[in-house]
């Protein structure tokens, strides 16, 4: 079902968890992650939250976005206020069936406008760019590994391990290759060659394990978003698969002629999520997908039909257990005086609270402790009420 816009009352009213968890961390963690799955989708390049989920009920939108609003005629609505971009039709349908929700006007603690610093902050979970060396998803993996008999599998479906997954907890990565497989004899000799090399030996061991899991994926690359979604699901749905996955999507830095470029990237995201959901099958009930980007874009279109680097944007939470069909936002408004620095959607929700709250509820972790570990040094409370209890 679809509810109207949730205001801050919703956030404030549900921030009652936490204190008990701090007192009884062992108990909280003893529940463990079980077979729950988490997929983090990072939209690199600052996806435009106002295009993703257009605040069509705001009287200020017309003046800022003009002709591009024609795209939203007949688009899926969330309440009377928000319209989902038509290229995200699958996401809109999931929201309408109660399995997806958006958080809007959200931003990390970062208030400048560099992609690289913004992504660094979103991936490390630090309070300043480059201040933290490991990623929050790696620390989450370490947290789940505490007291577990064997470390869980964490996996990036990418050619390189993204910063969010880098750190002390063992992780792997995989991307389909167009190269012919190396001979088994050579693989065995490489194992011996690296046996005494701490770094290469450990990487090689994980490479062989992941390779075995992904046998015969039939793909040559990750360019087909739908196939990438299927691949992610195939590596996560089984009992022996990865519990934590990460995938990256680019093409969101729409400085010029945004209408076509955004729609193209959004169609890719929609296809990826749809294929992943289908691929997860019964495991979808125990799966959470978190989609986030480093920051939003300018509220008004620039001189070349695009948008420049901004501040607040939207995040998407999707999964079998999500209390979906709604938008969580303390909507700041689009009038000139309401914009951040006169140009951007103003941030009213901490993105870190969204991430920590969502993963903690889903993985049955104590939210306060998860927040302290994943995003230390924040005053904001983890968001709650995201997952159906």
């Amino acid at each position, binding site marked *: 079902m679809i509810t109207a816009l949730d205001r801050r009352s919703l956030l404030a009213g549900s921030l009652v968890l936490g204190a008990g968890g701090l007192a009884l961390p062992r108990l909280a963690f003893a529940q463990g992650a079980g077979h729950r799955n988490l997929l983090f989708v990072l939209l690199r390049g600052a996806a435009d939250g106002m295009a993703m989920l257009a605040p069509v009920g705001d009287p200020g939108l017309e003046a800022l976005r003009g002709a591009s609003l024609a795209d939203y005629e007949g688009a899926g609505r969330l309440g009377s206020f928000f319209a989902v971009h038509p290229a995200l039709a699958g996401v809109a349908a999931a929201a309408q069936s109660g399995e997806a929700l958006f958080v809007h006007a959200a931003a990390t603690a970062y208030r400048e406008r*560099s*992609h690289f610093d913004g992504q660094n902050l979103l991936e490390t979970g630090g309070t300043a760019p480059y201040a933290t060396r490991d990623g929050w998803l790696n620390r989450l993996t370490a947290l789940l590994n505490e007291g577990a008999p064997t470390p869980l599998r964490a996996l990036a479906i990418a050619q390189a391990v993204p910063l969010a997954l880098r750190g002390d907890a063992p992780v792997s990565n995989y991307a389909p290759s167009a190269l012919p497989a190396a001979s088994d004899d050579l693989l065995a000799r490489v194992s011996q*060659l690296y046996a005494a090399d701490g770094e290469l030996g450990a990487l090689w061991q994980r490479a062989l394990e*992941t390779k075995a899991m992904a046998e015969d994926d039939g793909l040559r690359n990750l360019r087909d978003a739908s196939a990438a979604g299927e691949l992610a699901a195939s590596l996560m749905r089984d009992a022996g698969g990865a519990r934590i996955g990460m995938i990256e999507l*680019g093409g969101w830095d729409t400085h010029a002629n945004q209408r076509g470029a955004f729609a193209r990237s959004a169609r*890719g995201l929609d296809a990826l999520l749809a294929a992943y959901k289908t691929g997860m099958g019964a495991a979808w009930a125990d799966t959470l997908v978190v989609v986030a980007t480093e920051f939003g874009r300018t509220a008004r279109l620039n001189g070349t039909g695009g948008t420049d680097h901004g501040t607040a944007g939207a995040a998407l939470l999707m999964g079998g257990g999500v209390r979906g069909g709604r938008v969580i936002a303390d909507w700041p408004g689009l009038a000139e005086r309401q914009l951040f620095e006169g140009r951007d959607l103003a941030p009213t929700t901490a993105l870190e609270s969204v991430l920590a709250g969502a993963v903690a509820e889903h993985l049955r972790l104590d939210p306060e402790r998860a927040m302290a570990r994943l995003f230390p040094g924040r005053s904001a409370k983890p968001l709650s009420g995201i997952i159906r209890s």
Partner: protein
Amino acid sequence: MSRPSIALSRFGYGLAAGDTPPGDPRRYLLAQLEAYDPAPVAIAGRMRSRGETAEMVELVRSLRQDRRAAMAMTEPPEAMNAPAEDPRAAALEGLPPEYRTKLAEARKVLVADVAARTQLAVASPTPMVERLVHFWSNHFSVSVGKLGTQFEVGPHEFTAIRPHVLGRFSDMLKAAVLHPAMLLYLDQFQSIGPNAPFAQRRTRRGGDRPERPRGLNENLAREVLELHTLGVDGGYSQADVTELARALTGWTVPGIGRVGRFAEDQPSGAAFVALVHEPGARRVLGRTYPAGEARQALAILETLAAHPATARHIATKLARHFAGDTPPPALVARLEADFLATGGDLASLTRTLIDAPEVWMPGPVKFRTPFEWLVGALRLTGAAKLPAQRIVGALDQLGQVPWRAPSPAGYDDLAASWAGPDALVRRVELAERIAGNVPADDILARAEAAFPGALGEATRTQLKRAESGHQALALLLVSPEMMRR
């Protein structure tokens, strides 16, 4: 690592087949400063893009109404960006033949340029300077993904980077930032001053069609300050970004748009159109620049090139590239002082690196990037004459095709970005293919020569145990000595 091994692999791209290791490592490196050829014959025909870019941009603009065209117009800037391949192929089918021809031609030019750049490094007698070319090309990263850039990214490196790697930073900055490749990549070519005569006339006529580009774009200005000069903590504000963006209006690609006939050609290969330039004085970092058309942006770039924050930013990046992921502060300080004292003399910075004890530390300090690894492997095996398409395919599989970095910051220069499980598998797969197609005699002796005094016991043992020369060569190509430098 021994000093000869460091001179070969940490400073350069490793030993080339048939060469002998340097007797005097320092002199071997200094001699490269004299022997470097900025304009080798192999790329002599690629110094000008001959107006093909503008032709392509104009062609596509005329087709823009066609939505199918829009789908296929963009190369995927990175692997994950594009939608399914099938829609792209279908879109291509539906395109007018003249555009399909142009697109095929653009791809061919790009593949040839990537291969030419790679083969130059493979065959180079001055591999340290080639490394510097690629370092600076990555610093001023341009990436295919925007229309017409296929024709321009090669010439960007060949004409804006290569001539200046041992020259002055300010000359390289002006050439690289104002080259058509950069103007296209960071949207500068269509940025228009809001008070420029062209914009004013359109407003008066009131005939402005919606969706037509018609104003300021600050993308290039921001990256110049953040990435190319001062660095993100260099002390600039949003107002400085906007002022630099205004100063840059008018710099565009020759032959594009209705204003094209008013364009004046510039030495960088770009054009300047006064009609779209924002009039008036600009104020950047507290200093005022009088109205001066094309000269205004050049004057601001000159100031930025000499700024202490720029010196620190460049010193840090160079130190990270040659001395390790965590740049030694003392080396950064010396490079910074050198940069300021010489006014950004890049030959002097190179000599400072060669004389820096931090760069001669024995242990490996870096994990080789995919491009470094492939060039090193091709030099070592002597497999220089691979077809262009195979070179590009290999780089694509390794995850680092030149001029296709995922962001204007270029490719990462940190081990953690490249030393992943998947990367090792790909290098092993490729090593087996490369090794299978070249002569593979005396691999142990060749290994000792390639890593003089630096070959580890584990590698030596595996090379001896290998079933064949080809297998030994494949193992050498993925050995720890080859993976790191």
